[in-house]
């Protein structure tokens, strides 16, 4: 059974005129436990919205989002919050570290709402990422690469079963971007977490077990494939 399964997921928001506008339309998408998948798509195609839906930050207008058989779309917001805290890690493009907190505290906060704060484990994780000498530095005192590693540590602090990364290397130069992705894959592999990465970096795609194009998993694509009798899917 897949760790994550999206079926007929539809997200609509009202446009400025108040008419419903579809921003995400996924016919079917699956991700196995421990699998590392890259998600690509045009700008504005709904990649970030998909990650928000998977993270339980957004309830889809329609469809099912099954995580290990549990439908996130059917959970209350509070249970989705708890679920996210315990099972998911999230790395943002601009890292979104809390500016008033040190690197160590940012990682501890990543645990606070899930397994509970564990400074020793957070310290160990940061040391493993080469930030042992930057534990008490605030984000503004860190380089971009160091901030990226803190964000990765925070996402992994709870030993999540799935790590979502939204263009995590967008702010890094190509060399550092590949290095960061390699580190993310390595750490996810170590803790057995699946990894779903939204990326625009073509050079990085070859490193993933599977690459999924968002337009290929959309309901429109399925309809077209069914009508033409051709192949499709991720």
């Amino acid at each position: 059974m897949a760790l994550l399964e999206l079926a007929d997921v539809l997200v609509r928001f009202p446009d400025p005129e108040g008419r419903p506008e579809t921003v995400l339309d996924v016919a079917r998408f699956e991700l196995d436990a421990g699998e590392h998948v890259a998600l690509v798509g045009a700008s504005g195609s709904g990649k970030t919205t998909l990650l928000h839906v998977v993270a339980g930050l957004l309830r889809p207008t329609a469809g099912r989002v099954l995580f290990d058989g549990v439908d996130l779309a059917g959970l209350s917001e509070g249970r989705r919050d708890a679920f996210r805290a315990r099972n998911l890690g999230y790395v943002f493009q601009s890292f979104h570290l809390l500016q008033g907190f040190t690197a160590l505290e940012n990682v501890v906060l990543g645990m606070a709402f899930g397994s509970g704060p564990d400074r020793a484990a957070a310290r160990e994780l940061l040391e493993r990422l080469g930030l042992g000498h930057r534990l008490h530095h605030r984000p503004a005192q860190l380089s971009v690469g160091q901030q990226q590693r803190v964000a990765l540590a925070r996402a992994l602090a709870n030993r999540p079963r799935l790590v979502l990364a939204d263009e995590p290397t967008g702010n890094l130069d190509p060399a550092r971007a590949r290095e960061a992705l390699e580190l993310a894959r390595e750490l996810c592999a170590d803790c057995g977490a699946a990894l779903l990465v939204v990326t625009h970096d073509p050079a990085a795609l070859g490193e993933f077990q599977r690459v999924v194009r968002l337009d290929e998993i959309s309901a429109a694509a399925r309809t077209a494939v069914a009508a033409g009798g051709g192949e499709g899917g991720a």
Partner: protein
Amino acid sequence: MSAPQDTDGGTPPARAARAVRGAGVRLLVLAGIARRGLNQHALSTVVTALSAALASGLVLAVFAVSAQTREAFTSGALGIDAVLGARGSPLQLVLNTVFHLETSPGNLPWSTYEAVRADPRVARAIPYAVGDSYRGFRVVGTTPERFELEGADGRPLLRVAPGGRVFDPGRREAVLGASVARRAGLGVGSHFHPEHGVGHRGGEDHEHEEEYVVVGVLEPTSSPSDRVVWIPIEGVFRMGGHVLRGAGSYVPRPGEAIPDEHKEVSAVLLKFRGRQAGFQLAALFNQEERAATLAWPVAASMAEVFDKLGWLHRVLELVAYLVVAVAAGSILASLYNAMGERRREFAILRALGARRRAVFGVIVLESTAIAALGAALGYLVYMLVLAAAAVLVRRSTGVVLDPFFFHPALVVVPLAMVGLGVLAGLLPAWRAYSTDVARGLSPTS
């Protein structure tokens, strides 16, 4: 493959224990986030807390200082029941004889004093003659009996400090209140010249020729008596420039006894043999004869002052409440205005798994912390106001305000301030609660 962790396992007691532990940890985490939020906006936090401190301190001062002042003026141990004086305001009479403020409303003939002293309902009658001063301190002519008045504990209210004694009624001797001795730099054996009138004008032109010697200094009493120069009443009669008008104008001559019909007193302090005497004599003097005024009970006359000043107290209360409202508003405004720039912070916390109620709690904790800090600092403001009030009251009346005086407002007001802090945090907290996570996390937000 393990099941997703959306529920807690274990036995019910184990789950309950884990839940309690988890709640405690989460509260600590939220408190830590709130503390960091306050630190990040330190200037705003300090200014807002100071406004809360000012508000809390002012309300405390309005309630506690006024209550204490009223109590000090209306329930102090006096050793007397009533004051008899010239026809006029009982309040002016009490202010003049007990608190040594204001001017005397006039004089009574010596015969009135003699009559009331002889009344079987009167246990003690002590004459006062006023009108002179020394360096701003009132000079009171009286009899040695004044130093025999006792408090509720049976001990004399005025005690001469070791090394001194009460004046001899036939000599130019004086007993000084503790404040007079300290501030005028006089002690037993010192000499001084009383001055005309009760306003301190200084200079030899205003000094009486008569020289008095200090024979005793009173122990401090924290009462208006500390600010008095006590001399024999005969000395006031014979002070140069004084004209007695008990029966026509009469200027006493040295070595010659003063006929009683010429003597006058400013007031007579009275101690009754029973409460009934108060009713009877008040009716006699105030309603039947109407030749003199009996201020009885003394405390009631003083309470009248505070009742008359009730409007002032209400105005001060209103001002204090307005300051409280402004303080609560400033807590609300400072937190609410910060919500815009903190939207991302809350979105990140939500993305990390914090529930809406957690971010709501962070803001309420912050507003509560600001108010609590303000309430704590409010005690400092209160102490400063109390100290200033104490100095003013002591300088003008001799009454000492107690810094440890307890008033329920000292507990209620800080708690109310904290409660207001909680309320002031609700609106900003609701804004944090309503944070749209997706929008808060978007790069352009």
